């Protein structure tokens, strides 16, 4: 097994590619890479540090939950494959694509949790969907999950928010 980080620049966008074994122990490498990439977004936004920090917090949370689903459920009961992450960073947006060869799970099929009941589980997909602007999933193999988030005007994270962005199907 090996991990590879690849950095390229294309059409004004920064693209970071990373591939790690699909086990939970490697999640931190993915999230720290993503967190560092978030710091590159919109230099002007750095002056609005609270918004930029919230952007990073939301995106790291969403990708972390997606990673958990792959490592803990997608590869459960089988020899884990790799998880490939591609981060595309634009002027004020980031697209994250996660690819894996585990069991497919479309996040659109997950039920909304009853937050008033203080659930102790089943929150991962809700967190993921709430903290990004767009989610796209193509079952595989490989399964490809695309998360898109734009740094925009402050608003409360909501599972009903569906601003369209350039999410793509790979």
């Amino acid at each position, binding site marked *: 097994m090996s991990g590879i980080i690849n950095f390229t620049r294309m059409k004004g966008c920064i693209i970071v590619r990373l591939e790690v074994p699909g086990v*939970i*122990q490697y*999640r*931190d490498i993915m*999230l720290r890479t993503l967190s560092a990439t978030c710091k590159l977004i919109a230099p002007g936004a750095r002056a609005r540090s609270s918004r930029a*920090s*919230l952007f990073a*917090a*939301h995106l*790291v*949370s969403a990708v*972390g*939950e997606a990673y*958990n689903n792959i*490592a*803990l459920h997608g590869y459960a009961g089988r020899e884990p494959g790799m998880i490939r992450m591609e981060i595309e960073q634009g002027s004020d947006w980031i697209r994250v694509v996660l690819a894996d060869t585990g069991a497919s799970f479309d996040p659109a099929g997950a039920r909304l949790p009853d*937050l*008033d009941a*203080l*659930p*102790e*589980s089943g*929150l*991962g997909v809700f*967190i993921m969907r*709430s*903290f990004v602007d767009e989610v796209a999933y193509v079952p595989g193999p490989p399964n490809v999950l695309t998360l898109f988030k734009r740094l925009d005007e402050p608003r*409360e*994270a909501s599972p009903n928010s569906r601003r369209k962005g350039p999410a793509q199907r790979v």
Partner: protein
Amino acid sequence: MLFSTSAANDVTVLRIEGELDALSVTDIRASLNTIAEGKPARVEVDLSALRLIDSSGVGAIVSLFKAVRAYGGSLTTTGVRGQPLAIFRLLRLDRVLIA
């Protein structure tokens, strides 16, 4: 993830540092059960040094909250900020867990 507990005057303080997530939560579950079994009147969870929490970590804290509430105790969290605060607000835990 590092954690420590201290108890005085029927108040137990649990301090969690670093990251409480799917990888680290197994390290703390036994200690959370021990806290609940002691039935302190009040439990304070100091999260001022918690950098990241995921749904697994939330589940552990909520589980402790329910266990404490079940015997009539109270649990509050303090120092929640950054990514953990964003998670708490999304899940509306700030209304029940933050003093």
